[in-house]
């Protein structure tokens, strides 16, 4: 039994997912399952389809084949904002802050459009403001609440990106290269944030190139090479897998 299978069934179940761009096959027949509470590392060389997979799962791109179940519910045909409202959040590889809005308003967007859009939820203005403060506090950005994103440093921008994803109160979070271009100490900071989020009950899929970060964070590794899943298992075992070695280091 793989670690992904629990009594209640996996949180996310992908079967036979495929995506092509014209004649180029970006993803082929991807099967995977992610259980509630897991910390999964998704790795693979550049162009192996990691971001395309995230885009297909989050509804930014449409996969031609295969289907996706989230908490037992089919996601096929739902557009991005509907998936976000179901509890599937993502951060972008290149941070995409709302650059004319200050940090509070950046967070108000997901709070008003996702959290308040769920049935039975209606935060008042003061509650929304309170949530913004909590979220900014959690990523140590509280003192810049009224600043614009252009006043932020690289690492702060990444934190804002994460805070905005977390503001949607997701059950599953895709962190797409949340640490690219950061210094080792900054990487530690982001990992600490992600671990804390996981302890709060958010299942996290980390897409990352920095192997030190992936190994210290993940409880399971998925490896994509040329649009195919070639390995899935405990991090140490996956790294000893000869196919993975070949993909990363060559023959």
């Amino acid at each position, binding site marked *: 039994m793989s670690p992904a299978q629990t009594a209640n069934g996996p949180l996310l179940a992908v079967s036979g997912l495929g995506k092509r761009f014209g004649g180029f096959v970006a993803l082929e027949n991807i099967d995977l399952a992610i259980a509630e509470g897991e910390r999964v590392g998704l790795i693979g060389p550049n162009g192996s389809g990691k971001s395309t997979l995230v885009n297909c799962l*989050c*509804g*930014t791109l449409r996969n031609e084949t295969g289907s996706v179940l989230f908490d037992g519910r089919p996601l096929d045909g739902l*557009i*991005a*904002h509907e998936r*976000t*409202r179901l509890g599937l*959040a*993502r951060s*972008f590889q290149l941070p*995409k*802050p*709302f*650059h*004319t*809005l200050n940090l509070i*308003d950046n967070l*108000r*967007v*997901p709070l*008003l*459009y*996702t959290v308040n*859009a769920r049935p039975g939820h209606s935060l008042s203005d003061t509650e929304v403001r309170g949530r913004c403060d909590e979220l900014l506090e959690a990523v140590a950005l509280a003192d810049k609440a009224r600043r614009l994103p252009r006043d932020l440093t690289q690492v702060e921008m990444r934190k804002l990106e994460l805070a*905005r*994803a977390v*503001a*949607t109160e997701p059950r599953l979070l895709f962190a797409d290269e949340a640490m690219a271009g950061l210094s080792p100490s900054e990487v530690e900071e982001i990992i600490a944030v992600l671990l804390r989020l996981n302890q709060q009950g958010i299942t996290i899929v980390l897409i990352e190139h920095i192997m030190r970060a992936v190994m210290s964070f993940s409880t399971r590794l998925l490896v994509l090479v040329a649009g195919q899943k070639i390995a899935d298992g405990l991090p140490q075992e996956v790294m000893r897998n000869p196919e993975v070695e070949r993909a990363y280091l060559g023959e």
Partner: protein
Amino acid sequence: MRTGTFLIAAALVGVALVVLTRIFFTNDYFFFAAYVVLQYIVLSTAWNILGGYTGYINFGTGAFFAIGAYTSAVLHNLHTKPALMQGLLGITVPAIPLPVMMLIGGVIAGVLGLGTGYLTLRLRGVFFAIATLALTVVVQTLIVNWDYVGGSRGIYIIRPAQAPLGGGYIQYLYTLMMALSVISVCIARWIERSRLGLGFAAIRDDELAAEAGGVPTLRLKLIATTLSGALMGMAGAPLPYYVTYLDPASSFNLAYAVNSVAMPVIGGMTSWVGPIIGAVILGTIQQLATVTISSALNLLIVGVLLILFVIIAPNGIMGLISARQRRRAAIIEAAVQQRQAAA
């Protein structure tokens, strides 16, 4: 200020302006000129809902504006040439009051906005702008070939002999346009402060990120095109009675599109104040130039001002003001920090 309070305040300002100007200005020319400036407040405010808040540049103002004008012309015709409706449905169409014509024109232009939105909102940036420019050509071609509203010859509209609200007909048109300006500005300000406005801003800044944050981008963009188109149509509805001779060449004039882009750019696109400032400044200069120099000068003035502002103040007059405020706030913040460090 809450939206309700603002609505009352704006209405009071509108009423006061109408009453005062009608007491102090006896020359009809003032009202002819002021009508045009007010019309541009509505057009640039409407344009800004889609262009400034949502970030989709629309060059099709002329189409929505003329749809409003031609709706009125059709409604006018149905009354003055009763044969058509009597033959078709056996009814006689009564004279429709102008405010009702404005509402109908607004609805039709709003539907055009919704349809345009569905067809073009997959396009971004300059491609959307080109599509809206094409829309003007398509609608104009339809009107040119529609004989019932005069085709390319145009159509004469005879004003009712008596104007409601006392005074002459131009004073009546001026009062209506003042009311529409107040309504448009209130709508724009309400949007700015509402959840809808936050969603528009998110779309303008980054559509993918907006979707990822749960914003239903397509629905919001359709709301923007519909609302913006409807207000433009309402602004165009009184035009036949203003000019008394309506023809495609002047009602679809590119100047409407150019002005309604230029005014928010000059005034500032991020706030409801910007389009008002731009419309008042540019509209007044154009009216003055028309009388004192030549009406052909108008587009040159727009062009020169537009270039100056894009170079010197890309965020318009409101942008200059808020940048100044930010600088001051930063200086004060720095001073406070210094004092704290010294203490």
